[in-house]
């Protein structure tokens, strides 16, 4: 019974915690620009994160190694350093985008200056990272992030165009701008920090063979349910903005969609959901920065070791928050930063995911938990997808000037 409860709680937390600022921005922009046509990219991204989250959890259980430990072990020093630099850069850019997003959300609801609220968001996230244990972080941010389910309600309330939605689930061709958003939606679903955090979290929580079903259920049920929210974001944007070809350039426009459909209740549910979903991602990103650096440098790491035993890891955690805050203070637009983060993630993905995939079917290291006839081909297939995204992302970014040119 305890196991089922654990699975249910994990799934709910994954559902609420799947969406971050990248999902909010890219899915809404895709819906406003192209209606339902990019919907098919969401399941592609979701299956990708399911495959690699399940693999990384299983590898962590079998080998007791986190993602960057494997990178260090399996790559030559220069390549593991390159992977570390890319991974850290992506996590830091994402972290600053998330922090900026939190500041904006508080500014929309409470007024006052967004810079001040970014500082408030930073203080809250640092406190939550240091004070709350993993279970509490997962529950608080995952459950309250469920406020974003309001977009599913808004989509249903408006009356979904089921036929158009069905058509959107089938890949179609389009302009370079269309492909930029397709790549963005896929990459936003498979951000590397999610895997860094997932595998390191598994080690921190001391997962054993008994936790394999929990790992599998969290990945296979939680992420697809989170994908539903992403799809709802696209659908609501299509319902309300497509007729004007309006591509949201602000988180306020995304909240405004819920306000327009469901009134103030919808607005506040969306604002709370977005705040906690982005807050959860902020903590994940900050931890990921500290994990990757500490694992690569072979420092003692982990929240459970405490600040005294893992001093350099703790310093890296606080340093990541500090650097990200400094980046936001340059007045860079968090939405633009998000787009950079998502496309930079696309480039970092192959380097980060390759070692997990390679080791997952190594019977010597994995024993009975090695990938079988389904997981292995899926992992290779998705590695090909990730490589394609890594090449196409930056090219499309240049050609479309970050999706602005048709």
């Amino acid at each position, binding site marked *: 019974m305890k196991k089922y409860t654990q699975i249910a709680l994990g799934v709910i937390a994954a559902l609420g915690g799947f969406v971050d600022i990248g999902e909010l921005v890219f899915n809404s922009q895709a819906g406003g620009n192209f209606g339902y046509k990019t919907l098919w990219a969401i399941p592609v991204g979701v299956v990708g994160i399911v495959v690699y989250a399940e693999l990384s959890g299983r590898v962590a259980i079998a080998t007791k190694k986190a993602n960057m430990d494997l990178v260090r072990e399996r790559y030559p020093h220069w390549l593991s350093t390159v992977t570390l630099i890319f991974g850290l850069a992506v996590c830091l850019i994402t972290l600053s985008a998330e922090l900026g997003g939190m500041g904006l959300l508080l500014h929309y609801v*409470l007024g006052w200056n967004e810079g001040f609220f970014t500082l408030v968001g930073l203080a809250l996230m640092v406190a939550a990272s240091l004070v709350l244990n993993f279970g509490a972080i997962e529950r608080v941010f995952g459950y309250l992030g469920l406020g974003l389910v309001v977009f599913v309600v808004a989509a249903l309330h408006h009356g979904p165009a089921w036929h158009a939605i069905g058509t959107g689930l089938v890949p179609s061709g389009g302009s370079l701008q269309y492909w930029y958003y397709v790549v963005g939606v896929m990459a936003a679903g498979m951000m590397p920090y999610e895997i860094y955090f997932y595998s390191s979290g598994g080690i921190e929580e001391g997962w054993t063979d008994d936790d394999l079903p929990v790992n599998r259920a969290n990945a296979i049920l939680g992420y697809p349910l989170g994908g539903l929210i992403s799809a709802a974001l696209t659908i609501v944007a299509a319902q309300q903005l497509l007729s004007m070809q309006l591509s949201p350039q602000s988180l306020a426009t995304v909240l405004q969609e819920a*306000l327009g459909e469901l009134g103030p209740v919808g607005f506040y549910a969306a604002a709370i959901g977005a705040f906690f979903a982005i807050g959860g991602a902020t903590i994940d990103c900050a931890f990921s920065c500290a994990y990757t650096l500490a694992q690569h440098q072979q420092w003692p790491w982990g929240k459970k070791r405490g600040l005294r035993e893992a001093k350099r890891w703790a310093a890296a955690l606080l340093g990541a928050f500090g650097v990200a805050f400094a980046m936001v203070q340059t007045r860079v637009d968090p939405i633009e930063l998000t787009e950079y983060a998502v496309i930079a993630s696309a480039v970092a993905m192959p380097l980060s995911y390759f070692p997990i995939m390679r080791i997952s079917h190594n019977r010597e290291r994995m024993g009975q938990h090695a990938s079988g006839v389904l997981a292995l081909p899926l992992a290779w297939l998705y590695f090909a997808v990730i490589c394609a995204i890594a090449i196409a992302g930056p090219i499309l970014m240049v050609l479309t000037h970050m999706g602005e040119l048709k």
Partner: protein
Amino acid sequence: VFLVSGCVSVAQQDEMNMDRLSTAADDGSILAGLIVNGDAGSTFARAHARELQEDADRVRLSVADAQPSGDQRLEKLAEELSSTLGDLVAHPGDPAVARRARAHLKVLSQAIAKTSS
């Protein structure tokens, strides 16, 4: 790659400026509609209208600073748009102001569409 993604031709810059203005006008008109209906709170309305006004101001500055000189019609539209959104910033809870702003923003949106075609 990030640096290169910032390089565009004059025609492309005009296209992007036009899109940004159109987005700000349409978004502002939705916001004004929500204020008229009494759905949008003053805090949110002011914050969002200010963001949109800043977008319009950025386009106006970009056109004004362009070398060779940018499209004067675009600069004028950006100025009008900024001023109309400024009314929403100054009176975020006033339905009468929002009604007038919504009508004006719709006219501006059509004018922007005409200019871009």
